[in-house]
Every structure is written in C-alpha cells, then in structure tokens.
C-alpha cells in the first residue's frame, strides 16, 4: 500500500462519537444483522454531520479530528466505512479502544497528533506520510510531524486490517504445525 496520501482536509472538533457522529449505529443493521463490509458502511460515514460527505469525500482525503476521536461504545463500523472511502485519519487523541479499532479497520492514522487543529483548516490540501508521521499543508506551505503508529501495528494495516492479519496468523500457525 501507499503510505503517503494527498487530499482535502476534513476538519472536525473534539469528542466525535462512534455511534452517531462517525456512523449512526442503527445504519449498521441490515435485516437485523450487522454488516461490516466497508463498501456498504462507507455510504453512511459522517452523514449525521455532513449529509453528502460520502459523495464529496475522495480517496486520499484526510479527516483531521480533535481530542477523543471515536469516543463511546467501541463499535468499529464507522472506522471500517472510513477505510472503505480510502480516507486517512489524524486526531489529537483517541481512546484506547479506538486505537485498537483503527488498526483493526486497516485505517492509516496518526492518532496522537498534538495541536494538529492549529495547523490545518477545513478544505486545506494535505500530504501525509503515515509511515513517517510527516504532514505537509500544501495550502499553507508548512509542515509538521508526530510519531507514526508502531511498525507492528502498521504491518496489520498493511495487510488490510484485523481479519487478513488473523488469516495470516492462522496460516503461519498451521504451517509451523
């Protein structure tokens, strides 16, 4: 995968909730069964905040959020939808469960980027290297950086998230006998 992404900055505030702001939980159910297909979930990402977000967002766009992005009941579906749209994520902070789920969803992220909000505005053009933690604000001609995710977790994202990584773990276990 390409760890460098370039696109529009979608800037949000603090405390975005998993079950309402990021993706309304009721939308996860189809015929009473939870759907975890990113291609379905992507149609509902952020629509309670920006109704036409899924149509306007393009692969490579970067969501920039404040503190405690993804607070609330740890439902992964909104993060899977974000991955389905091909987005990247930068946040000032995330709760630990969301940290786990970002990796599980295979979503390229810089989840603990102090004061990123002071550096970007909604609509700015950003280039982000999620492997090194470097962010360039092309609209303003400035750059900054934070710690990237640890390599072991980037490996999971590289494989496409939790399920492909688990598949590999099971195959490795079987191969070793």
């Amino acid at each position: 995968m390409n760890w460098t992404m370039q696109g529009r900055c979608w800037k949000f505030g603090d405390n975005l909730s998993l079950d309402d702001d990021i993706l309304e939980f009721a939308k996860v159910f189809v015929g009473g069964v939870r759907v975890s297909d990113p291609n379905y979930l992507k149609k509902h990402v952020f629509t309670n905040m920006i109704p036409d977000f899924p149509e306007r967002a393009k692969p490579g766009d970067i969501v920039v959020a404040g503190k405690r992005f993804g607070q609330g009941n740890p439902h992964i579906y909104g993060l899977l939808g974000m991955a389905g749209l091909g987005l990247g994520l930068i946040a000032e902070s995330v709760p630990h469960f969301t940290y786990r789920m970002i990796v599980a969803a295979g979503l390229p992220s810089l989840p603990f980027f102090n004061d990123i909000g002071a550096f970007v505005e909604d609509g700015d053009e950003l280039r982000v290297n999620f492997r090194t933690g470097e962010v360039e604000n092309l609209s303003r001609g400035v750059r900054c950086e934070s710690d990237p995710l640890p390599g072991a977790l980037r490996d999971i994202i590289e494989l496409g998230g939790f399920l492909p990584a688990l598949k590999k773990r099971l195959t490795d276990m079987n191969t070793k006998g």
Partner: protein
Amino acid sequence: MCMTLTEKIMARASGRDELRTGDIVYPEADLATIHDLYVVEADRQLTELGVERPWNPERVFVCFDHDTIPQTVAVANRAKKIREIVKRWGIKHFFGPGRGQGHVFPMEIGLIKPGACVLAYDIHVTNYGAVGCLGLALVFEFPAVLATGSHWLKVPETIRIDLSGKLQPGVGIRDAAARIIHEIGPDAADYRVFEYTGDALAHLGVDARVKLCNLPIEIGAKSAIVPADEVVAAWMRERNIGGFEAMRSDPDAEFAETYEFDLSAMEPVVALPPRPENVAPLGEAIGVPIHAAYLGSCAADQYEDMAEAAEILRGKKLAPGVRMIVTPGSREVLARCVEDGLMDVFCEAGAMVGPPGCGPCAIGRGGPLADGETCIATVTRNDVGRMGSREARIYLAGAATVAASAVRGEIADPRDFLA
C-alpha cells in the same frame, strides 16, 4: 513478586509466572462470551478464516439477551440461524431468550468464578469483576478469540480506589459509581483497570459491586474488579457455588494512581445527555418533564436495583402520560421479585415488566423512544439514539431516582419519598 490482581490473573491465563504493565500477552480465555447480535457475524468471520468451530466449544458462552422477543420476521429468522450455528459449533453454555442478561446471570449460576479470565465480545463483561473475575472485551477482534482462544492484549495499569463510609438513605451505589467515574474522568481512566478496596466493601454485596464494575468502561477503562472476599464467599455459598478462591493484589503492587471516596458523602446524581460522564448533582435536572422511565440493563437489573425502585413505587402510581418498563436481569431475579411482592408493586404502579435481558438499552429494543421524548433510565449509556430516536434525550440515574421521577412525571429526588 509484586503484582496487581489484574497482572496475576493475566499471568496465570498466559501461562507466565510474572508479567508487568505494558507487556503484550496472549491470555487464554477461561470463558469466551458472545451475545445474539454477534453470532451470525462471528460465524461468517470464522468461515472466511477457514475455521469450522470455536477453538474450545466447552469454553464458549452464547446467550440471547439483546433481541429477547423478536420484533420482526427478519430478527426471528436471525434467531433461528443463531440456534443452527450454536448447534453446529457444539456450544456447551448456550442460553436462550428469557434466561437473563449475559453480564448478570452467569455469576448467579456459578459460571463465573473469582480469579477467572473472561474474554468477551461485549464491553460490559467488566460486570464479572464483582466476583473477582477479570473481564476483558475485544469487540471486533473477537474472531481471534473464537478461533484460537486468545488475542493480543497489553497488560493494563491499575488504578486503586479506596472506598470508606456507608451510603445515606436514598443514595444508591449507582450514584456513587457515577460520581467516581466523573471524578476520575476519561483521561485518567483510559486503558486502566479500576480495582476497588477499602472498608466500605464489607457493606457492599455482589449486586452493588456490579454497579462499581459496570460504569468505568463507559469512560474508557479496560476493566474493573473487586478482589473476592468473604462477602463473595458467603454469596457463593448461599447459591451452592464452589470454587471460591481469595485473590488480591500483593501489598507492594504498583498502582498507577490511588483515589479515595467516602460513600457517606455521596449524593444522588444524573448523567446529562448525551454522555455518561456528564455527571451532575441531581438538583441540576430536578423538574425536567419525562415521558418514559426504564429500570434495567446490565447496569441496574439485579435484585437490589429492583428493591430500590420498589421501595419508592410501593403504593404509588406512575404519573399520567409516563410509561415505565422494568426488565429484571435474570430468571432468578424475576422469581425473587415475584416471591417478595416486588412484581405486585410494579404492576400496581402501572409499570410494564419485560423479559430478562438487555431491554431498551440495546438501541431501544422492546420500547424505543420517540422523537422529542425524554427518558430517565438506568441504562449504561445516553448517547444520541441509544434508546431509539435520535431526537430523544436520555438522563442516566440510579433505580430510586428513576422510580421517583416516574411517579412525579419529572425528574425527582428519591429522598423526598423516604420521609
């Protein structure tokens, strides 16, 4: 050796003599728990992985507590499918609808023991901390547990919470638990285990301890636990449950932080919409008109919660225009409520009693809120849409406050009813 209780349990489950905060370990689940909303998804995920059945069907617990009574044919069809899956997997601990809420009744029937390590799909597994068991949730990554019996976990730090004093009349343990999560807050709670200690525990039974262990997860704690003591031993003896083992943190174990709370100084509180940590003195919400009241969910559906509400409701009626739903946490709780006359109190007051299970806390199942309605409830969370309409507002409170408010038709102080 100087380990916290959490470290001891995780070390034992990981086959290690010792471990430290921050270590990455693969503890094997003594019990792996899932509920009805997840079984079909789990089966599909296992199939994708080429795994036919869980690693050890004897250690998997499946219960129907979210959609107890299907409201649509689609849900009924899913229920049928779940039964087929459970049979195909050869699950030993399978409990059908009406048996109870999965974070409550397994303790009552001795499935959960002190010192056990339970890995769960659902976050409220922390309830089991009430009997000294470590409950850890993995949610979306749960297929790893079903396929292999374990998954990676970072050993969390522990916060020690010393409790002293006794609650005043009209103040419930839920009030204290809410005050505690408010004071500690999401930043300090994140990825830590709350371990409760102190003299006050001698007066707090398993029902009360469940509240202490239920609420921290809402602000991001990894788990919560009360070291099993004589109170738990006596509780288990009463139910003919064997396997009691006292386990506690070593005297020189390291705690990330220590907090002290005096229960006698606690007051009734509410959590204002739309987040459980928005805890405020009850006075700030007194007089807010309500349309619905709900007593139940894994945060308040045990006998003591039922009794706390019944004490307020006895001989009274719900206010005109207010509806109230009560869901006991298990068949045992329901039976005891019938035996002790609590069901008469609820019925005479005009409340509806639903089947044991999660009740409307599960996104409004069996009693959703309408647009513009306000509800006071003992549920776990008050996010937008948690009990139905996104245009409804949910105030969280303890059983006594919910009952008092249902009688008044507006948020009310239970202490006014105890004169």
